[in-house]
């Protein structure tokens, strides 16, 4: 069963004009939740070129321009095509309530309903820290708990910081286009409170030809900055990647990295840390990925950002009491994950030996952001849980889950020491098809790889060494390991052992364009060819594991966290943050009157 956002539109259309119905599409889509005073683009897409005199658009029966404060532009032929659109940028509604929008071109009519809400009038929290374990699923959490805490008498000997929270909810993650989401529209749901479609950030997915022309909605960064707060985003992915980009970006295509760098700059976000430096460099600089000669490193510096390109520089910048804006770029690509960074020294560690991990980035961000007395919003992402799950590399994904946990523990300690007025939310943007099904025991007799798999009582307990202070076992290639398996995968050689020489590359496209198992792993002792269960040919061919549509867990602590409970939409998380910070209070009568004058 699926529900399209235009279902109401179609229903009205079918009922009223069943003969020749090509219903309008209205943005924001039906059932959108919109904070009062927040900015959004209002767009009506007609199915054909319309006669302007026949166009009638109302909101709750009134002329739309009166409700939205200004008239829209009627574009006769959008993008040169035989279709008209009505477009109003930066609309807003000041009064909470249900709003029914009806649009007619004289022949067909469509309607959507919006829910406009006001947040609390006064903030209950000074700061919000939103943790996102990208792709973090139940199995990652369980595996991290096993490695980090151990079990005695059938009980875990301690709680993960991400578990040790008073409030918990299940979040659904689907978008306007599909039951499966990606990191773009999933993070967008958190940072805007609106649903969108795969690959989209800060916009609804319309028919606009340019990826940058789709109807925009306001981000939490913009709302918080309007109230004088500081905002930050730190990650171990490229900083332009979808999750951190959702803090500022408005594009239909998450891969518009160069545009996203500009959007960061324009947003005046205060702290920005991760990898992905080439999109900041002018094309004349060797190593740049820009198509123009704009030097964003220079622009950020001129806008009073301290620049850090190593952990050492980051620590020094954060310690400097004068630093209120910080740009940290630590790798040309993604920052290395915890297993490579701390233990194996693989990946790009030789090339970039002084990269911070996520908890270190976060600690620096907290120092800088907390210099703003009006409070801050900080997104902290452990990005590579997802990337390593795509590459079917369980150990790296689990170590990066432990890294997320270390950051959360640190944030909770920080919040306690700084007034207990910080709302901390820990969640994932989507899940992966992963599950802990037992252990792999090298000592188990048998010639086949599958003989080493132990289930039920035989699984017993793995023999990782006791974890260090941050929760990481110092040895990952133990003889009895957690078996975290993947349920959706391309052709690959399964080895059931950690990849000590670098991240797993399971699948390669061959000369015929078919995704095939990477022969590099064929000679690993015991390797078995696993025929994939995902498409492997043509445009739909997949070379990695994929996201799943399972719900994700949200845990929360701090003021405002009590609203986290039961089963919620991912967009509800935005509202919890907006409420805690009172980002969209209803105007008092006096303010509204003054505005009218």
């Amino acid at each position, binding site marked *: 069963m699926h529900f399209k956002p235009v279902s109401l539109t179609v229903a009205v259309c079918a009922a009223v004009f069943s003969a020749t119905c090509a219903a309008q599409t209205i943005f924001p889509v039906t059932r959108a939740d919109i904070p009062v005073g927040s900015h959004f683009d209002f767009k009506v897409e007609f199915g054909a070129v319309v006669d302007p005199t026949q166009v009638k658009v109302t909101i709750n029966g009134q002329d739309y321009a009166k409700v939205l404060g200004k008239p829209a532009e009627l574009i006769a032929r959008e993008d040169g095509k035989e279709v008209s659109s009505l477009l109003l940028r930066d609309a807003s509604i000041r009064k909470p309530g249900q709003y029914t929008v009806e649009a007619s071109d004289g022949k067909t009519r469509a309607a959507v309903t919006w829910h406009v809400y006001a947040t609390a009038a006064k903030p209950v929290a000074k700061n919000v820290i939103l943790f996102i374990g990208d792709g973090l699923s139940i199995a990652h959490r369980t595996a991290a708990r096993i490695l980090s805490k151990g079990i005695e008498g059938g009980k875990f000997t301690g709680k993960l910081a991400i578990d040790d929270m008073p409030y918990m909810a299940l979040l659904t993650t689907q978008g306007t286009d599909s039951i499966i989401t990606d990191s773009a529209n999933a993070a967008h749901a958190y940072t805007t409170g609106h649903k969108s479609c795969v690959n989209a950030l800060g916009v609804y997915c319309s028919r606009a030809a340019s990826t940058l022309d789709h109807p925009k909605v306001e981000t939490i960064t913009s709302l918080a900055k309007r109230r004088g707060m500081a905002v930050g985003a730190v990650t171990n992915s490229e900083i332009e990647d979808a999750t951190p980009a959702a803090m500022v970006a408005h594009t239909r*295509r998450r891969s518009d990295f160069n545009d996203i760098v500009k959007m960061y700059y324009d947003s005046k976000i205060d702290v920005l840390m991760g990898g992905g430096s080439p999109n900041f460099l002018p094309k004349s600089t060797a190593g740049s990925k820009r*198509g123009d000669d704009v030097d964003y490193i220079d622009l950020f510096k001129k806008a009073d950002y301290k620049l850090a390109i190593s952990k050492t520089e980051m620590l020094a910048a954060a310690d400097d009491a004068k630093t209120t804006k910080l740009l940290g770029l630590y790798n040309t690509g993604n920052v290395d994950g915890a297993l490579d960074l701390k233990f194996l020294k693989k990946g790009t560690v030789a090339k970039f030996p002084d990269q911070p991990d996520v908890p270190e980035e976060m600690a620096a961000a907290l120092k800088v952001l907390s210099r703003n007395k009006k409070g801050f919003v900080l997104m902290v992402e452990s990005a590579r849980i997802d990337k390593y799950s795509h590459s079917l590399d369980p150990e790296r994904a689990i170590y990066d889950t432990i890294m997320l946990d270390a950051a959360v523990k640190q944030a909770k300690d920080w919040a306690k020491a700084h007034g207990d007025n910080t709302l901390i939310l820990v969640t994932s943007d989507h899940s992966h098809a992963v599950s802990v099904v037992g252990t792999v025991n090298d000592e188990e007799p048998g010639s086949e790889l599958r003989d080493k798999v132990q289930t039920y009582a035989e699984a017993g307990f793995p023999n990782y060494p006791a974890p260090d202070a941050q929760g990481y076992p110092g040895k990952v290639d133990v003889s009895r390991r957690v078996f975290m398996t993947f349920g959706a995968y391309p052709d690959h050689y399964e080895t059931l052992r950690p990849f000590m020489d670098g991240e797993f*590359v399971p699948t390669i496209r061959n*000369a015929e364009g078919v995704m095939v198992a990477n022969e590099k792993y064929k000679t690993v002792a015991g390797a078995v060819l696993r025929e994939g269960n995902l498409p492997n040919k043509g*445009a739909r061919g997949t070379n990695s594991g994929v996201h799943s549509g399972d719900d994700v867990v949200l845990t929360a602590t701090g003021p405002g966290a009590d609203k986290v409970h039961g089963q919620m939409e991912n967009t509800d998380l935005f509202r919890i943050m907006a409420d805690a910070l009172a980002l969209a209070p209803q105007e008092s009568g006096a303010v509204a009157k003054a505005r009218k004058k």
Partner: protein
Amino acid sequence: MSAIDRESGRCLRRTFLFSSVLLWTLTARSADNMSLDAQLSFDSLYKSVGVLGTQYSERAKLLKGKVIRMRGYMAPPLKPESRFFVLTREPVAVCPFCSSDAQWPSDIVVIYLKATLGPVDFTQRIEVTGKLEMGSWTDPETGFVSQVRIVDAGVSTL
């Protein structure tokens, strides 16, 4: 489903439509001819790769404008009919596991072929021979920006 929709999670499938793609003819060169050219590797191309840019090695600078040989792996081409492709240090099924087409490794070399190329196994190491170019260049057809190129190139399998 639009091209845009296909991007995420499956890494760039949209740009690699392979249906009737492989119409190229392999431009093989004999080992004898190659020995006359200068060899350059991914390791010897750069003096350093840093956050704020890369530094070319003295050897690479010396070989600029000259015919060189370089070994690596062919990434599936950006456009089926294109005569250019990306040479990478390791085989990639096009930027494996990355979420968008902006995420190529930073040490790629773009190859402009002098003739169309027959089917190449992307897991097979190849050697490219052609003239070394350095400096920013935006491909007029695709908008793909490259810093290092080998032009008028031929390819042989190893």
